């Protein structure tokens, strides 16, 4: 029962333990870095400086925050369901953690190369919603419950477009193995062939992560803090950790399946450090885009959110899969099918833009009460 780890044979359990420790350590560091990065970036978007006091450029701000959270009192509401309340953070944290297994950083630089990597990531990522609902239910708080139900509705709605986008890409790549998907993009990243699924993936990612403009479950003005109103200290920081880790993983995933991951450009030729740099830059760009959207757009209403998912993203995802099927089934040469895929997908993207433009700029009927009061005068 031996496995290969860094070129040497070790016991599988030792191997597993080492890999888990590496992931947990990396996840924590990356999350702290991301929080600092977000605060700096959002600060610049609002023409502020962001944190500057703690350490050079405020780099130790996350460490200070983490220490504060760990040192806080462990509060549990009297009426909370003890088991559900206390297990909820783990149910959010562990699936996020499991997603790390299949995500590729560089060639041969990932925990496991899974044959069904994409499917695995999708399957595992949707488990964390159980934790959200548990947190909402276990807190015995109306705001938490409302937030949890909103989170569940939103996550389930946006899981489908996410899956559709990924299926479209998997059709083009011809595999579900993430490493092979990345390898297949060594000449051309998938976003050129599939701009519409890339857009759907990005939008659905924002919703899955509960980021602005889809931060309805955690909207402070409506449901205070969403499912984690009653959480504080280390439990709350676990939710936070899971949220940012999920953002990091989905950014890695997005850069792997759409932006060419470590393979484009010249990934295979120029070695592992170049590949790691590529992955970092692409994931960083993806995350920067998330922050950019966050600093720009206001929060949507629930009906807008649902309508966008079910009426726009999902049908277009289906349409993309159909079109992909009709093009790919012919077995045309790569250039022909590539051009066809790219143009149809780009047309689909413009169609989405046109539909959104039409729906936001259409004349709206006067609200009933207002019309009635005007008639009475």
């Amino acid at each position, binding site marked *: 029962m031996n496995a290969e780890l860094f070129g040497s044979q070790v016991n599988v359990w030792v191997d597993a333990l080492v890999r888990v420790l590496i992931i947990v350590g990396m996840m924590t560091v990356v999350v702290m870095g991301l929080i600092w990065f977000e605060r700096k970036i959002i600060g*610049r*978007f609002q023409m*502020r*400086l962001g944190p500057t006091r703690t350490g050079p450029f405020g780099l130790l701000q996350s460490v200070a925050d983490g220490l504060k959270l760990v040192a806080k009192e462990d509060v549990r509401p009297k009426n909370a369901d003890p088991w559900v309340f206390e297990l909820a953070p783990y149910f959010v944290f562990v699936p996020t953690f499991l997603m790390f297994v299949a995500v590729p950083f560089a060639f041969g630089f990932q925990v496991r190369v899974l044959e069904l990597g994409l499917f695995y990531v999708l399957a595992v990522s949707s488990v964390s919603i159980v934790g959200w609902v548990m947190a909402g239910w276990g807190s015995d708080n109306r705001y938490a419950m409302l937030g949890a139900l909103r989170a569940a509705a939103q996550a389930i709605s946006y899981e489908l477009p996410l899956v559709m986008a990924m299926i479209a890409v998997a059709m083009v790549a011809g595999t579900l193995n993430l490493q092979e998907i990345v390898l297949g993009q060594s000449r051309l990243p998938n976003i050129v062939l599939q701009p519409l699924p890339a857009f759907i993936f990005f939008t659905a990612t924002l919703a899955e992560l509960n980021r602005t403009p889809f931060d309805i479950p955690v909207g402070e003005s409506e449901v205070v803090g969403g499912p984690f109103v009653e959480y504080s200290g280390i439990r709350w920081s676990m939710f936070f950790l899971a949220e940012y880790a999920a953002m990091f993983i989905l950014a890695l995933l997005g850069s792997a399946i759409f932006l060419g991951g470590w393979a484009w450009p010249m990934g295979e030729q120029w070695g592992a450090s170049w590949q790691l740099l590529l992955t970092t830059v692409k994931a960083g760009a993806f995350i920067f885009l998330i922050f*950019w959207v966050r*600093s720009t*757009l206001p929060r949507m209403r629930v009906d807008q959110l649902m309508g966008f998912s079910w009426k726009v993203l999902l049908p277009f995802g289906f349409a993309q899969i159909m079109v992909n099927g009709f093009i790919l089934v012919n077995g045309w040469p790569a250039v022909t099918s590539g051009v066809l895929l790219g143009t149809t997908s780009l047309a689909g993207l413009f169609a989405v*833009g*046109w539909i959104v*433009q039409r729906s936001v700029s259409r004349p709206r009927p006067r609200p009933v009460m207002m019309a009635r009061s005007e008639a009475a005068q």
Partner: protein
Amino acid sequence: MKGLLRSMGVTLSAFMRKPVTREFPETHRELPERDRAFPLLLWDFEQTEPFCTGCHACERACPVECMTVLMKDNPNHKSAGGDSTRRKIIDKFWIDYGRCMRCNICVEVCNFDAIAMNNTWSGHEMSVYDRADLVQDLPQLLSESRGGELKAWRAP
């Protein structure tokens, strides 16, 4: 959709601009010369003595009575063998900055342009642990002007 993309552009342009906030205690924004902090006394560099003659005009005009002025005969006056034209000069001067409301009336009533509002950051960063420390005496009131730290002050 168009508005959405345009708003993304707007935020990006904000991102590219220089932050307007400053790291306050280390870097200070430049104050205008008409900035009105607490009042202080001006130093006459030609006669090497204060402009103030201790005439009590400011003390009488002060609405919050934060000033205490004592006058004396000028030892540097011509009659005493000196070269100053001031017969009387300030002996002791206290201003309680804890009371002062920075109304500028003392500056307006002064017949000798001897008192001015501090227009440097030292007039704003005055926090102390004891209120008694806010009462400034004559050397303290003159130090800014003597040090040449006040920016060119012009009568309004």
